[in-house]
């Protein structure tokens, strides 16, 4: 049986930072190779050290891409996706050193420069991903209050049903106000709305404000309508429920959004890298 730790150890610190050490070692070796070989006229991708570092970088890119496949293929063998993620992050970072040394600090406006730029986009988006994975999960958990996403949505539907019932005895105008909450209130919406969790002109908020103003007037007159007070209570509860689920979706969107840059940029990088390698061998 596989041995099991009794504590949670995140992917960055996996196995006492094994892959961090490996990445530093590989980077150090790359720097040593670059510094110790005397390239003429000046270091570039065409020297022995350049080919060495270039081949290493290309192989690394291919292996790093395999994480997408690895995480989806559930095999029976003893593997740990956490170890893969750890290696992916640290070796991915070492690529900055290896690939930059491979260029010999000569970057031009051509397909080679494009490959380098795309690689940096992938790495920087990945860095943001690491930042997000380190900071957002705690917020996500704290916001959930043990409710699952389907439960949060169901709670809103339940409140809608209660609002619908509570609105039956109301007059035409008040009923129209409640309809704002029922019909013009969205949870998700555009990317911007999902990301910020803010929905300007949210129907529920407008309905709540309108009913709150009416209840306020009635209270000052000393004769609040219990039906309307109950309605306000429901609208306020729905507001709180909406805020929770919107924040939930906002955090989840932030946890996923960077992947929508990271992954397409990776495929673009693979294409540019192919062009880079082919052009070097065919036309150099």
């Amino acid at each position, binding site marked *: *049986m*596989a041995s*099991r*730790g*009794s*504590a*949670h*150890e*995140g*992917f960055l610190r*996996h196995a006492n930072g094994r892959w961090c050490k490996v990445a530093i070692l590989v980077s150090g070796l790359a720097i040593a190779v670059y510094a110790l070989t005397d390239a003429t006229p000046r270091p570039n991708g065409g020297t022995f050290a350049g080919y060495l570092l270039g081949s290493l970088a290309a192989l690394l890119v291919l292996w790093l891409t395999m994480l997408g*496949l690895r*995480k*989806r*293929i*559930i*095999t*029976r*063998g*003893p*593997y*740990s*996706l*956490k170890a*893969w*993620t750890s290696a992916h992050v640290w070796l991915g970072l070492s690529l900055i050193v290896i690939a930059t040394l491979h260029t010999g600090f000569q970057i031009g406006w051509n397909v080679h420069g494009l490959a380098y730029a795309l690689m940096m986009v992938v790495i920087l988006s990945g860095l943001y991903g690491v930042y997000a*994975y380190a900071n*957002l*999960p*705690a917020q*996500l*958990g*704290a916001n*959930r209050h*043990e409710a*699952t*996403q389907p439960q949060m949505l*169901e709670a809103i539907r*339940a409140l809608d*049903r*209660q609002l619908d*019932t509570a609105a039956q005895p109301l007059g035409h105008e008040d009923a129209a106000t409640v309809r704002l909450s029922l019909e013009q209130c969205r949870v998700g919406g555009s990317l911007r709305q999902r990301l910020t969790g803010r929905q300007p002109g949210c129907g529920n908020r407008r309905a709540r404000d309108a009913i709150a103003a009416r209840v306020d007037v009635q209270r000052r007159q000393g004769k609040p309508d219990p039906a309307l007070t109950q309605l306000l209570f429901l609208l306020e509860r729905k507001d709180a429920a909406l805020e929770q689920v919107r924040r939930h979706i906002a955090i*989840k969107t932030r*946890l996923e959004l960077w992947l929508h840059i990271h992954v397409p940029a990776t495929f673009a990088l693979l294409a540019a890298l192919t062009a880079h390698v082919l052009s070097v061998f065919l036309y150099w």
Partner: protein
Amino acid sequence: MAEHYRIAIIGSGPAGLSAAAHAATLGLSHVLIEKTGHLSDTISRYQKGKHVMATPSQLVLRADIAFEAGKREAVLGAWETAAARAGVNVRYHAEVIAIMGTGEPIAGSLQQVVTRRRDGGSDRRELQRCAPPYRLMLANGDSLVADAVILAIGTQGNPNLMTCPGSDNANVQYQLDDPAAYNDEHIFVIGGGDAGIENALGLAADAAQRNVVTLVNRSAEFSTAKDANVTALMAARDAGRISIMTGTTTRSIGPGWLVLDTGEGEVRARCDRIIARMGSAPPRGFVESCGVAFASSDRLAFPPLSAVFESTAPGIFVVGALAGYPLIKHCINQGYDVVEFINGNRALKPADEPLLEARLAGLPGRHGVDYWLEMLRSNITILNGMSPLQMREFMLDSAVRSYRAGDVIFARNAPGSSLFGIASGEVLVEVDPADTSITVPIPAGSIVGEVGLISGRPRGATIRAGSDCIVVEISRTAALKLMSAVPAAAREVARITTERSLLQIFKSGLTPADLTDVIASAKVETVRAGETIIREGEVGDDIFIIRSGSMVVEKAIGGKTIFLNYVPAGSHVGEMAVIDGGRRSATVRAAVKSEVVRLEGEAFRALLANRPGLATRLREEMASRTALNRFIESRKDSFGGVVEMYTGIANFLVDNGIGEATDVLLIDEKLCVGCDNCEKACADSHDGLSRLDREAGRTYAHLHVPTSCRHCEHPHCMADCPPNAIRRGPAGEVTIDDTCIGCGNCQRGCPYGVIRMDSVPPRKPWLIGWLLFGQGPGPGEPDSAWRYEHARKRPEKPKKAIKCDMCAGQSGGPACVRACPTGAAIRVLPEQFLSVALLDRDSG
């Protein structure tokens, strides 16, 4: 003059119907008495379209009615046709209320009938048995006479009836077949158990039916219902779909209305229909009043029967579930057999003969089944009280093996909850894991493995065969049945357990003779979850051995209760006060429902006086506990909130069933990014169905316990599995095998809601096909739309119970943990995790 029959069969379930069909085929005069208006009421109450299974598959069917696995409707249809063809004489709507012998009183044959009163006391009366023929009194005042009576009434019993005025009204019903059949009604559901809550939820599920549903519960809380049901009920109430009235009883009922007694006085309400689900009275009272004795007062006990199913009342035969055989196939065979026996064919071998032959095949010598059954029964002390019929059933759940001298029977720390009886030869217990040459012999006739049976924890020692020996392995289910059927066996197992756990705890050369006084003072006590057995600061010197369940040790430090330790079954607490004579230094309370053995301090002190070595050993152990106390206290000063956080987390975990778990999945919400890769991995490594719900479940201080199996020490799911399909595997995992009949008992029994009933979805296309061309639903559990679309071409698969199997047989260990990209998911053993290691968690 009452009608006179040769055989009267009560109950038209599989057993009764089969008996009647065979009696009809043989041309015996018979009557089949059925309470309702149709055959086989229990099975006809199964959900519409339910797949009825025919296990055990290797058992041959011997009957005049056909039976093979299929839909409920098909099975019932086949039986009705067979009954009509055989010419069965059925009397519908007839309920037997009493059976009395009409012959001479049988000298010395008295039946003790004990009725338990609500207040906990009991009434005892004696009943003189009389010889057959029997007079059967029916509820409508008719009576009939029969030479032999076959009781095939099952164990369902009759629903408890409403007793208030007007309860015989037509709008009162005791079951709900189809919630969708009622519209626009004001419906009151009486009873807050699972049945009542499920009915109420069913009636209110579809708002379009416009039912006004009210649930009425006598007590203030829903203590007998499952948490998941109570949660769903509260959600339905909050959503305004159901009203709940607690602390309320019904006063009277009339057409279109009812009057309720609430805490605030009487309430009259409109009511079109009342569905009363107030539990059911087990048939035991009726059966006993017929002169049929039960083996013990245990709730699990069955009537002792002769080899031909005859009960203690001559001429009254018991078959089917009431005889302890819940599976349909057994019932049908018994119905056939019992009629053969009554008809004089006493030489008939039961249909399970080939099964038993297979079980006993590997044993030395060329002996028949009867020889081995008798050999085991007479050689093993705890089996002495069994009848030949019980031995047959017992052997179906057990295995007999022969071992060569030196063979390992089971190894230390291996999981297992079965009991071993030594039929011949002797076995050796390796008491010291460091030195396997130190052993204690256990002779033939005795038992080993009883600690695993009672505590559900891994084996405490390796057992080897001392000489060539024959050992019977008794599954936990069979052992529990045995102990309720033979009270002497239960007492013997309890005595041996106490003695051995004492010997194991205080290893310093004690012999059973030293312990006689201590064991004489021993009392087995059941402790409710949360109940305190030792209170800090009190005077007391009793010692407790935890037989099953687990305890938590707490101490008040600086006005706050601090969690000190988690004590699993097999350990002992309370010896510190005996040794240093002071007051109790900490509080010990049960984490889950537990059983403890209480040993009197007085008897123990006498033992210590004779054995100075023992006192030294205990002092050493005490020193380590005192050191732990001091450590916690020192951390308390330097870290303040950390120790409280530690206590908070420990209590949270214990509240969530970790106290009875053997292996539990925990998720660190500071690392979990919500990718659900754990669920996808689970589905992809198990036929496409996930056994875990990551997002659901409780959370405390960013530590999340998802809805996933805890592999309990005494699994609640195992308690009532008719085909005995739930077992503990070699790595400690609790799994359900292919013999599952899909009855859903385990799902209802699980307090953590981790079992689901589902059928295996169709196979998904290749993953690369999805990646490149978008074929199929991708990784994880396919959605219902895709399943529906792709399932139509194939025959429908039955729904079975599925749950976590801890990825048994997969070399990498649990897929959920392997597939977690960030390290948020881990599986832990509770005693490892509920330790000082928790202190190292960040206090954030």
